[in-house]
């Protein structure tokens, strides 16, 4: 299932699962990720799953590329190791002040606001990976009618908890951050809770997300 393992520098393995972005390939990546987390191979310091790659970094004092590559190649995969994956419901408020790019999207996609939201809320989304900034989930796939380019000039500051869409993906800005995705709303739920010392992130790779709309009043209540 791994097409090729090469070295990323002298202290990481770069596992290539293909070039396409789809759930099937990503499930393979995440299956390897879950199995490796349980494997306790000596020296692994981090494992980063993404759409179709898995990067395994290690402590060069404890192991080496050749040793760890052999271990990964010989890893016996437990099937259906996706029991850790959950369905998570995320409320979204689409009030004008939060939906920063809805007007732009109406023009760009040539569909009206209510149709955009109807389409967006009608689907479940799959979490391909989390990262870039702490806890940020990369979700897909969007309905084709909502495929939109990034902003030409990225925002210097996207407000924390904004929901953004671009091409086949959507995400949630877990911290205020620069970013170029089209913002369509905001959730009152903290996706990354830096007060929690275990599992600070609500959404993990492999999880399924369903968004549902809430009013401004409900949004404010949830924030209290």
């Amino acid at each position, binding site marked *: 299932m791994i097409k090729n393992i090469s070295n990323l*520098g*002298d202290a990481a393995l770069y596992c290539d699962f293909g070039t396409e972005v789809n759930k099937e390939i990503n499930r393979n990546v995440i299956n390897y990720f879950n199995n490796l987390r349980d494997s306790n191979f000596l020296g692994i310091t*981090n494992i*980063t799953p993404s759409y179709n790659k898995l990067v395994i970094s290690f402590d060069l004092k404890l192991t080496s590329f050749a040793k760890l590559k052999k271990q990964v190649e010989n890893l016996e995969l437990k099937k259906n190791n996706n029991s850790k994956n959950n369905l998570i419901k995320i409320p979204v408020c689409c009030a004008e002040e939060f939906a920063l790019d809805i007007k732009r999207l109406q023009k760009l996609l040539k569909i009206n606001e209510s149709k955009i939201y109807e389409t967006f809320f009608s689907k479940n989304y799959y979490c391909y*990976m989390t990262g*870039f900034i702490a806890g940020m989930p990369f979700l897909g796939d969007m309905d084709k009618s909502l495929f939109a380019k990034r902003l030409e000039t990225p925002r210097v500051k996207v407000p924390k908890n904004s929901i953004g869409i671009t091409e086949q993906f959507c995400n949630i800005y877990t911290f205020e951050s620069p970013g170029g995705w089209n913002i369509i709303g905001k959730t009152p739920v903290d996706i990354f809770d830096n007060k929690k*010392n275990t599992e*600070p992130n609500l959404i993990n790779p492999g999880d399924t997300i369903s968004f549902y709309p809430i009013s401004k009043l409900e949004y404010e209540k949830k924030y209290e």
Partner: protein
Amino acid sequence: MKKNMNKNYFEVLRPGINSTFQDNGRNNFYHIGIPFSGAMDNRNFLLANTISNNEINNPVVEFAYQGPKLKYIGENISINVTGDVNFKIIRKNKNLEFSCYENIILENNDCLDILSTNRSVYGYLSIGGTFEVDYYLNSCSTNTKAKIGANSGEKLKKGQIIHLKNIKKILPKNKIEYLNSKIENIRIIKGPHFDYFSKDAIDSFFSDEFNVTKLSDRMGIRLKGPKISNIKNTNIKSEGLVKGVIQITADGDPIIMLSDHGTIGGYPKIGVVISADYDKLVQIPPGSKIKFKEINLKDAETIFKLYEMETQNLISNIK
């Protein structure tokens, strides 16, 4: 836990430019977007704690360029500074000069003024004892982006009090002679997207000089030099990064990812800095010029072994 009856603390009179608590870093959270962090220059971090007779992973204060000015209140305590650093102690209106890599005794009401790092970036302050700091996910390393770790994920602030505990009663007199050597040639291993760049671009990547710009911090070093032109695609599907990865942006400029880097990225990776050169790489200040040199994995592994032996040798020479 037994409460320390003695009140020993530092008051921050001046925080410095980028002063944070750091330790060995945070493992196993890349997959949720939390980078490794930890002391940028691992060798100088290890030396600081070893000179203090501390556990190897004890928290230190890392500072960049200009360090903090700290007033000390409490019983006598040993401290040491590592790196290439100018600092002084103000005791009863007298300026006392000391060297890096040796334990110094701080007395009540002394003021430690860490003035600057010399043609380098990072320095470390360690104490014969422990800074009382918060831990998050098994590390105290401060990550100011995710606001986690010691000091609520913030840099040191003016006026804040840093409490100390476990102060060593027997004050060690350890020291070593050590000179931080500087490098201009950074050794790298080819990255997975080497073939995204034209032959001319690759040639100039390895033969021309790059300037380290001011847009460099704990997250990364931004370089300016010849544009590295892309013949395939200036973006890739986002994937995992590690420290030392050199990405080429859509503008054709290299960025080297450092300890607080974003965990995934969407620019092609032309190469990765070898582990043995990392401590020296992070110490190259803005305004300097660097060059890249390609080596293979085998050589990189051998060079790392030698670097490790050298570090262990330094540690065993501390007396």
